[in-house]
């Protein structure tokens, strides 16, 4: 079920003195099973773009198509759309509101009118996905949990809708390293199960280890896209977009500058380790 943006432009406060073009002629196709990292500095339009993916915002001009159908068309069932495209906002734990973890996660499927046993099955399955123990936590108040656990409850609420496309806006912001690794591990597992993932991130290291494709936004425009390997090579574009590159890519560049012969597009620690070990063995031989 490909999700396609066709020449999407979005203007905030159109016609007023505060008019800002947040998205400028964005065209992008999100294919089944992709893991897309959406990157760019603050204010580049990432969050605005993300809200177009499930129809929360409507393009000022251009179209968003799901499986070829305009999601802002008159006949489209919004509820069905938001079930297919699940959106996890920044700091989603701020939106928890129910008395118990299970009730909070059940909110979406219940509103969909699913039978009670199906709702229950989905709550259990969503909790399993986010690695929260149902027996221990289902009846607890979400507000008694740690920050990282609360965030996982909020994400489970979206997963309980069983979306085919999962969109996450900076899911690890503000978490400690353990909380971050848990969330990223969980997203990786969902992707492995076939869910299409779109993740907004400021961490190029996380992007490097997860994404199959990167989309770089700068001042509302799409300035680069492709496999991380191809994008991280374009140092000038990344710099102009106000973005860093992974430390491994920096080291690769620094070593090449010192005359060491390496491919110029290494960007993960693992591949750099393999190459350096190989060179070390050759040097000793």
């Amino acid at each position, binding site marked *: 079920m490909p999700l396609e943006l066709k020449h999407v432009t979005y203007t905030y406060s159109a016609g007023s003195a505060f008019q800002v073009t947040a998205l400028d002629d964005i065209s992008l196709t999100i294919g089944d099973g992709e893991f897309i990292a959406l990157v760019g*500095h*603050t*204010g580049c339009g990432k969050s605005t773009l993300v809200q177009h993916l499930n129809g929360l915002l409507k393009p000022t001009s251009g179209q968003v198509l799901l499986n070829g159908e305009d999601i802002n068309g008159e006949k489209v069932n919004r509820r069905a759309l938001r079930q297919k495209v699940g959106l996890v906002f920044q700091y989603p734990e701020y939106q928890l509101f129910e008395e118990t973890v299970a009730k909070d996660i059940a909110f979406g499927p219940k509103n969909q009118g699913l039978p009670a046993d199906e709702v229950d099955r989905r709550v259990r399955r969503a909790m399993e996905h986010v690695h929260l123990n149902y027996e221990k936590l289902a009846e607890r108040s979400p507000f008694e949990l*740690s*920050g*990282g656990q609360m965030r996982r409850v909020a994400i489970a609420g979206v997963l309980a809708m069983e979306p085919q496309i999962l969109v996450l806006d900076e899911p690890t*912001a*503000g*978490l*400690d*390293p*353990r*909380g971050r690794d848990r969330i990223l591990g969980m997203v990786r597992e969902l992707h492995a199960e076939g869910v299409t993932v779109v993740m907004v991130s*400021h961490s190029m*290291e996380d992007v490097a280890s997860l994404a199959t494709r990167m989309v770089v936004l700068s001042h509302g425009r799409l300035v680069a896209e492709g496999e991380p390997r191809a994008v991280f090579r374009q140092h000038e574009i990344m710099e102009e977009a*106000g*973005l*860093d590159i*992974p*430390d*491994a890519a*920096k*080291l690769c560049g*620094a*070593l090449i500058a*010192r*005359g*060491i012969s390496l491919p110029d597009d290494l960007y993960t*620690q693992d591949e*750099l*380790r393999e190459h*350096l*070990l190989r*060179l*070390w063995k050759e*040097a000793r031989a």
Partner: protein
Amino acid sequence: MAPTERLVVQDVSFTYEESPSPALTHVDLKVRPGEFLAILGHNGSGKSTLAKLLNALYLPTEGRVWVCGMDTADEDRLWDIRSQAGMIFQNPDNQIVATVVREDVAFGLENLGVPHDEMVERIDRALETVNMTPFAEKAPHMLSGGQKQRVAIAGILAMQPSCIIADEATAMLDPQGRRDVLSTVQRLNREKGITVVWITHFMEEAVQADRVIVVSDGGVVLQGKPREIFSQVDRMRELHLDVPRMTSLADSLRKEGMPLPDGILTVDEMAKEVTRLLCPSSSNT
């Protein structure tokens, strides 16, 4: 007798009301004037509790805390203590109180009853120091997260403090905002000799501190220079903390037999050491 160090934590234990177990147990810590101390620890380790004890937001259940020679349990000195040890929190939106930047910076001074002319001068100087003068008459909600944090720092500076305690002040910021806030505080530390206690999850921030302490299970488990701390890669992982990426790459190469030295922290250091091993002839450059 009051101790001469800027901040002294003397055999402190702290238990939250209604909590069965203490958040901190028998912690001793001294921070000398002009030191930049980084505190690391995963969520729930007790590091934020420690921060709040350092400016009398909490009082120890057992033991004593001294700020510039003042016992934090001495209620008569509370305002002196708070103006000597200013605190920045994680969420930029929770620490702005006024509707205009300049008034927000004025808030602490008004409470101290500083004369008007002096107040104006202190506010101007504080805003200039954090490079926020052009925003003096703006509304805080129009600012970015990093700019808001710098306004919060200006509010502290106007009080002419000798210490700044930052409790994950960069956790909610983007990479640019994070760099701006850290470099502002580093400059205050270097140029004005302000003592800094910097609590963070970001190892690359802790790397530039004079000293790092690691808090776990309510106690200080490691302390030393950043190089000494981060070279203990396995121990840090056990504590659910990151080590800088180059440190972990060097560690994994060392385990495969490549004789890299301990204590590599940065891309530059790594590039130099790898070059030394792979092409010894050109390693002088």
